[in-house]
Each structure stands twice: as C-alpha cells, then as structure tokens.
C-alpha cells in the first residue's frame, strides 16, 4: 500500500487516488476505536495539535478536537475573536508565533481561499485545511466519501447530486475533485444565480432542475443556501427557494428508493431540507458526523506518522 509522504493536507486537488484510498482505509480501523467503551489510543501521545479557527465552526472544530484527543494528542484551540488577529496582527505573523511554540500540526479554518497554502510555507508543522473560503474542505469530502462507500459499497460509478448554493460552497468543490478522481458521476444543481462561472469545466453535469438532479442519483447531498453572501440580488426569497429546491418527501418520490440523503451541515430546516427528509430513513446526516471523527483520526494519524502500537498504553 502507498505510504503517506505529504507534510500537509491542503486540498483534494493535490491528492492521488492512492492517497485518498489510504485515508479511507485507515479510517476503517479508527471507526472501531470510536465504538469502544474507552475511546482512546496512544498513537499521537506527546504530539501538539493546534486548532486554529478563523471562522465559526461546530462540527469540524469539535470533530478535529475529538479525533486528536482520542489519539492522545494534546490539543489547543485558537479563534479569530480571541486572538491578536483582532488587533491587526497578520496571518503570517500569527503563524510564525505559533511556530515558535513548536506545534506538530496546525488545523486551519479560514475565510480566504489559499490561506492554508500560505501558512504552510511559514511553518514546519503539518497543515490541515479545515475549510478555506469557498475553495476546499478536504476532510469533509473524505468523510462524505467514507459515508458513501459505507452505504453503497463503492464510489466508482455512483451518481452523486449536489444541490443548493454551489457558488459559495467549499464542500461542493472538494466533493467534485474527490468524486471525479474516484470515478463517480457528479451533478450540481441550484438556482442559476448560485452556479459559478463555467462550473461544468470542473467535469460535472449542471442543471437548475431538481427533478433532473435526483432522478438517477444514488446520493443526494443538500447544501446550505447562504443567503447572507449575495443577499437579495441572487434570490427573491427563502420561501421561493424552498419551493423550487428544498428537499421534501414529495420531490423524493422521483428518486431511486435506495438513494441516500446527505448534508454537510449546518442545516437550515425548512429552507434547503424539510425536517421529515432530514430525519427520514434515507438520511445519513448524523452518520456523516460520526464518520467525520474516524476520517479525521486517520488524517491526523497519517500526517503525524503515529504508531499503531496500542499495547504500550
């Protein structure tokens, strides 16, 4: 099997199929750890992991925190509001200061595309992109892929439809890059005002009709509609959005009976997804969150080169 050689995980774009497979396979064994009574292995004992979240986050931040702690790493959190970034310190200066404390890994969530790529040049520590603007969210795409494979037994050949605010979504981009590499067929769907320029150029089918998007889909992934970004010039109302794009039992009647429903969260009930769908039998939304911990454990483990000798504890 391929060995992991990269210092950072900056995006799906940079990864080979073998590397993606390695992460997913490694996650299998860590999923088991989270099912134990005592959810702790010593693999990363003595390692220092900094969770640097420049933007708000619930799932990703906690998921990394839980993953690192279950691997026995020491974790530290820094957010924009509690840092000197508020006082005008630059990102590079912030990272140089963190670097002086000798961390092993920096997990960065930032609103600017390319921010993790920038800091990786200024630190010896590994850098994990936990979402950079509308660019990439590689660990989300990996946990999505893990969930798809768990539910469908494969990724190659799956029809995956991503529905919602395609323009502002880093989840969409990382999913497109990953699913294309692994041989799935991707369709993106959303209001024309939320489909970015030449998105078809990324190798996806594009439609503004939900029926078309869900008809042959094995996986239906709903995305949060981010009304705050472009405001009322892109969308008349959330009511109209729900009417055309919100996922309901009624719309799902056209889908394959075994299609699964995913959502990266945070979810806006009654906007992009009806509660009955979110909580329905086909929803795997919370399983994505569970898998997220296992996938992130795998990523931390691979990046920090931990040992799997559990008997030492």
């Amino acid at each position, binding site marked *: 099997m391929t060995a992991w050689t990269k210092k950072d995980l900056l995006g799906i*774009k940079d990864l080979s199929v073998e590397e993606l497979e390695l992460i997913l396979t490694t996650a299998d064994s860590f999923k088991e750890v989270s099912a134990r009574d005592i959810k702790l292995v010593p693999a990363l004992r003595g390692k220092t992991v900094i969770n640097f979240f420049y933007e708000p986050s619930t799932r990703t931040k906690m998921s990394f925190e839980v993953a690192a702690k279950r691997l026995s790493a020491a974790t530290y959190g820094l957010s924009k509001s509690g840092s000197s970034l508020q006082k005008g310190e*630059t*990102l*590079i200066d912030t990272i140089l200061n963190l670097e002086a404390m000798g961390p092993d890994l920096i997990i960065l969530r*930032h*609103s*600017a*595309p*390319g*921010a993790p*790529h*920038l800091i990786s040049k200024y630190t010896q520590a590994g850098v994990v992109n936990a979402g*950079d*603007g*509308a*660019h*990439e969210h590689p660990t989300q795409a990996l946990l999505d892929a893990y969930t798809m494979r768990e539910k469908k037994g494969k990724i190659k050949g799956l029809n995956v439809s991503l529905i919602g605010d395609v323009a502002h979504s*880093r989840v969409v*981009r990382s999913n497109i890059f990953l699913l294309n590499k692994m041989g799935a067929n991707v369709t993106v769907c959303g209001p024309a005002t939320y489909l*970015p*320029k*030449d*998105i078809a*150029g*990324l190798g996806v089918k594009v439609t503004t009709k939900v029926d078309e998007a869900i008809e042959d889909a094995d996986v239906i992934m709903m995305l949060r509609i981010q009304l705050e970004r472009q405001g009322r010039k892109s969308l008349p109302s959330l009511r109209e959005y729900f009417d055309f794009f919100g996922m309901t039992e009624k719309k799902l009647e056209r889908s394959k009976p075994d299609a699964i429903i995913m959502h990266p969260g945070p979810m806006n009930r009654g906007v992009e997804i009806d509660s009955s769908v979110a909580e329905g039998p086909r929803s795997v939304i919370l399983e994505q969150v569970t898998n997220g911990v296992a996938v992130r454990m795998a990523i931390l483990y691979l990046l920090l080169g931990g040992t799997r000798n559990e008997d030492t504890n």
Partner: protein
Amino acid sequence: MKTLIKNGRVIDPANGIDDALDVLLENGIVAKVAKDIKETGAKTISAAGKVVAPGFIDMHVHLREPGHEEEETIQSGGEAAAAGGFTAVACMPNTDPVNDNSSVTKFILKMAAVGSPVKVYPIGAISHRMEGELLAEIGDMYKNGCVAVSDDGKCIMDNLLMRKALEYSTMFDIPVIDHPEAHDLTGDGVMNESVVSTSLGLRGIPASAEEIMVQRDIILAADANAHIHIAHVSTEGSVDLIRRAKKKGIKITAEVTPHHFTLTDNECVSFDTNLKMKPPLRTENDLKAILKGIKDGTIDAIASDHAPHHEDTKLVEFDYASFGIVGLETSISLALDKLMHSGLIDINRLVEMYSTNPAKILRLPGGNLSEGSPADITIIDFNRSVAVDKNKFRSKSKNTPFHGMNLKGAAVMTIVDGEVVFQVEE
C-alpha cells in the same frame, strides 16, 4: 554639447525610417539623422548591432508621491523608468492628496525637475478627489502641465459626469483616460471570473465589468466628439468593441500591459499575490484577442500600469492583498521577447507602440526623430539575455510576478534631452 550615435539601426515610424543611420544630438534636440555623419567634437556612442529609437514613453504609471513615498517616489520611479528604457512617463493622479488641482500638479513637476532622470507628465483627476461627483479644475491642471485626465482605478460610475468630462476635455484637446470597470459588477472580486476562479473559490471579476464601461465610453466619446483612451484593455470583448469603434472613426485609442499579453488567470492557482491586479489576468482566449489587437493596430500602445506596493501589503491572504504590480523595469524585455521574438510583430511596430503612439495620444513632444525634436533616445539590444531579478530593480517596490524569468531583449541605453541617464552594465 553634441552626441553622435553611430552605426545603429535607426527606427522612426513617424518618419517611415528603418535604416542604418547615424543620429546627431545637439543642445538637447535631434540635429540630424543621416548616413555616415562626420562631426568633430561630438561624444560618440556606438550603436552597432543595436536599434536606435525615439524615446520610449510609458503612458500609465503610478509614482506614489505625494503620499506613499515608502512605495515609490518621483525620483525612484523615474530611475526605474530610465533603467527600463523609458525617457518619459505619464503618472496617474491617485496620489495622496489626489492630483486634482494645479498645486499638486506643480508639486509633481517640481519634484520631477529636481529628482527624476526622465520626463514626468502628470495626469490630472477628472473629478474632485476622484470621488466621481464633481469635475476637478481640469483647465487649470492642463495649463500647469497635465497632459490628460483620468480617475484611474475609480472608474466614474456616474454617466452624466463622464459625459461632461468628455465634453469639457475637448476644450483643451486632451484625452480622457478611462480604467473601464463597473464597480457594481466587480463587487469584491479578486481575480478573473472563469473556471479557474470557480475551481479556486476566489471571487471573480467578470469580463462584463470592463466591457460594459468600454461600450459606455465609446458611446459618450462619439457623442461628444472627444478623445477617449482606454487603459489596460484585458478582454476579448473590449478589443472587439474598440476595433469596431475605430472603424466608425470614433476618437478612441487603447493600451495594453505586458502582463496581460504574457500571463493568464491559470497562473493564479499558486495563490501568488503578485498575480493580483486590476484588471485581472484573463483567459487564454482574451490573451489571444489582445495579441490579435496588437498585431492589427486595434491596440495603440503598451503601458505598464506600474503599481508599486509595499511587500507587507502582498504578504497576506490573496483576498486581502493589494491590487497591482510593478512593470517599468520588465516592460520592454517582455515585449521584445513575447511580441517580437515570437514573430507576432516586428521592431517597427513595437517602437510605434512604445514611442510614436504614446506621444501622439498624449500630444507630447517626441515620439519621433525629426530634426528639432527632443533628443530623447532609447537604444535597444534585442538579442541581450535578461534574467529578471527584482532585487536589482531601481523601483522601491518589488511586487512582480516575473522574478526569475529569462527573457530575450532589453533597452541598453536611455538618453533624455541629449544626456545619457541610463546605460546597461556590460
């Protein structure tokens, strides 16, 4: 004082000259251009194997003084211009304070007189403080040395004001220079809107933001019978609009920058903030259209849009970095390499775009080697190899994406009013 430039290939498109000739400069003017001039007592410069051209003019630079002397001064910018082979530059009014009145104009000219080795022609603001609301004292600035007006990067959104500016400019026979950009369409975009911006998740600046204003300018200039000059054309659509307007006889001229004929938005995948500028680097198709426009004459001039920025403003996230790159010291080498050696155009056309046309557009003395013209000369060695090294720039700022690039061709000597102000180290 006499200077004799011997044995060069003299290229003077304004006079239809491309021949092995000598050029005699005397008392700051061109005294004679002829074969085998014999002149005792003249300082002799050998230009064998080199091109001797009327002084190159960069009609679009930012010198940052007054206001941001840490990024550039009139002196350092002038030195960079001389080293880049330019005998004159025209500087944009977006200083602090803005060049929107004759006292700032006079200050710029005064600083240039004492500090700059090259000629500096100020461009005045169209509107008071470049706020796009009220006309600045264009007549007074013109009287005191401004050669054109422009609100530079703050393209005037108010169509009525733009119309009035064009009408008013006709009284002084000066061009209105527009940086065509509909700010409402640009929004907070940071790079060209394309499949590349989509892939990178960076906010896009659509081609339409430029083209809608180019079309507006054409309509208003035609109506006012005024001269509109379009700065740094970057899209295929703009080139087409300008070509059509020229065919109709509308008084329109246009410039492009070396970076827009050299690079595309594909480069932005590196997130290098020295690739961030306005207008942004566009697509391969746009670049091809620009090359076509250069070849067929739709594009009149090459201008660098030299935009010095302190390193601190570039060592940040792409979203937060300042827009703009320096260009005075790479412009001519890029043009010789990418336009001439590539076979797109010949050296005559290149001289036209760097000298003849900028002088015509701004109604400057120079741009030709007619007897009695200013003794402003650029000597070019188009076979000289250049490795771009930003650390050797005379400019105070080093924000270039071309560092480390190997190019063929360079200006090797710059002469202003008969004085050698730059000579390349052999």
